[in-house]
């Protein structure tokens, strides 16, 4: 277990419990939570954990600020979409699209890195912003290829859709009327486990990476790049390497997301709002620890998915009171989300995980 986690546990009892609860919820999501919306939220969480964690590789571990992370995410997603459209539905198309997206992300990240990271790390932030904006404009303009603002819908292998039936879970009677299992395993659930398994694998890989000699050098560079260079590490090479690795992982997350959604569009994969979301996940969860990305992604996705519902029911309950129902109107949910962010950054400057670990 510890070996699997690369000897880097969540640290702190509260964080460990939270991470374990998240893992179990995601692992058994199709059988624990009812409805497609819950499963969709779970899949979204899996993908965003990987995306946020891969962004933390840059921001938290290497101290590099990038605004192009969603662009790489989009490359992976569009790769799957385009290959599925042009090669026809099938697992070969998914594999080819995933590989092409990851390859394109690697090449683009390498070029951006070679041009900007040689100069200064802050220059990288500006270049990524420019390139990401250019790509977003290109995608919306080249509508013959990318579907423009409408995006693309495509078909994925039937085995991964709700129509497919992969049998049922063996049922266990626990005693009395309580029965575990017995649900039908649809292709949708198989698809979820593809996303979950892929995300888990990528996360464990990243955990390994940050605890490797390479990962330690990244932290040294973040702490003091001048000294890292003077003890013999070629800082530029390390920075370029991690930006390529991080881009490839983001693209792979994008491919998983595209396989799950069966749709790609600028809003879901390339938008600047998504970039801000990822940044918030990493900052709120805690920079410089991958567990922070897990906590941050879960909190943010849950807040975005369910805050309106919670507020709606709260507003109804307080219908008789003055002012409060108006404040809690579901249309005000962004206001409250914003307030939650400000408060969490104010009270947990080192992130939730950083704070809870510090108290250990």
């Amino acid at each position, binding site marked *: 277990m510890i070996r699997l986690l690369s000897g880097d546990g969540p640290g702190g009892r509260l964080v460990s419990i939270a991470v374990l609860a998240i893992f179990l919820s995601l692992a058994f999501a199709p059988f624990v939570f009812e409805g497609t919306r819950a499963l969709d939220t779970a899949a979204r969480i899996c993908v965003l954990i990987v995306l946020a964690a891969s962004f933390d590789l840059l921001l938290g571990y290497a101290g590099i600020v990038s605004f192009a992370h969603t662009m790489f995410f989009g490359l992976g997603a569009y790769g799957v979409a385009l290959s599925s459209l042009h090669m026809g539905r099938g697992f070969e198309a998914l594999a080819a699209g995933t590989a092409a997206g990851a390859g394109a992300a690697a090449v683009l990240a390498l070029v951006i890195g070679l041009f900007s990271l040689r100069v200064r790390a802050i220059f990288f932030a500006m270049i990524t912003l420019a390139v990401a904006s250019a790509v977003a404009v290109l995608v919306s303009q080249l509508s013959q290829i990318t579907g423009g603002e409408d995006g693309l819908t495509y078909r994925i292998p039937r085995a991964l859709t709700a129509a497919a039936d992969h049998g049922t879970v063996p049922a266990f009677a626990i005693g009395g009327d309580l029965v575990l299992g017995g649900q039908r395993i649809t292709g949708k659930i198989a698809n979820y486990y593809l996303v979950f398994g892929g995300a888990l694998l990528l996360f464990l890989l990243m955990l*390994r990476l940050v605890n490797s000699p390479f990962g330690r*050098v990244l*932290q040294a560079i973040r702490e003091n790049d001048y000294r890292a260079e003077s*003890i013999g590490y*070629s800082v530029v090479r390390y920075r370029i390497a991690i930006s390529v690795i991080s881009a490839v992982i983001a693209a792979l997350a994008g491919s998983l997301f595209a396989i799950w959604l069966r749709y790609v569009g600028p809003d879901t994969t390339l938008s600047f709002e998504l970039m801000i979301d990822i940044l918030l996940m990493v900052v709120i969860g805690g920079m410089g620890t991958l567990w922070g990305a897990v906590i941050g992604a879960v909190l943010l996705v849950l807040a975005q998915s369910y805050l309106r519902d919670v507020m709606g029911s709260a507003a109804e309950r307080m219908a008789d009171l003055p002012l409060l129902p108006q404040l809690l109107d579901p249309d005000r949910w962004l206001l409250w989300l914003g307030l939650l962010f400000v408060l969490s950054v104010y009270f947990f400057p080192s992130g939730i995980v950083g704070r809870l670990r510090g108290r250990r």
Partner: protein
Amino acid sequence: MLETRDLSVRFGGHLAVDAVSCRFRPGELTAIVGPNGAGKTTCFNLISGQVAPTSGRVLLEGADITRLSPAARTRRGIGRGFQQTNLFPGLGVAENIRLAVQASRRKGGALLRLAAADRTTARATTDILERVQMAHLSKRLAAELAHGDQRKLEVAMLMALEPNVYMFDEPTAGMSAEEAPVVLSLIDSLRRDGGKCVLLVEHKLDVIRALADRIIVLHNGRLVADGAPARVMEMDIVQDAYLGQGLANV
């Protein structure tokens, strides 16, 4: 052997280092002295690669290293310490040293191995911690150390690189009277037992007297004296330019 040939650097209109030519031999400890602003640290920066020279060359074992990056020079065996404490503040003491050991063994590129599982690097790290008498501090963050301990960690990191040329920039500055001898005897042993080439920028005359085989005097970026300590300290130009009344009092 390390050699500089007509090494010069100009910052705007100011000639900070002016045609310095010098050879440094293994097993020899050379103290570089001079008043503030004489170009001692700049000279160090030129040799270790942090600053590129306007003209002139740096040679190591006969190979021209003038155009190499600081990292590449370190990999070739030049270990540079800094005047201002220059550590990885948010990392532990042992991790600071471990990173230097890992650098000298070129193990930083391993992506999927676990750093904690590297026994030989860990052993070398422990060894150095014990040599500098800092084993009890191994878990502390570098930023939390007392100033003297930070200076000692700086020296320890340099030793972890196992270079052929050691460059110390006022290694005992700010250290207490008890701490300084530990570091100085370490430096002495590098030269005496290890046969290493040691360059030392130092202000304290007692340290220079005790350690130096040779003194180089820089003044306004120029090399004005070079030779055995006893001889150099008596030279008029040294008396006037640098040591002045200071020497008379010692």
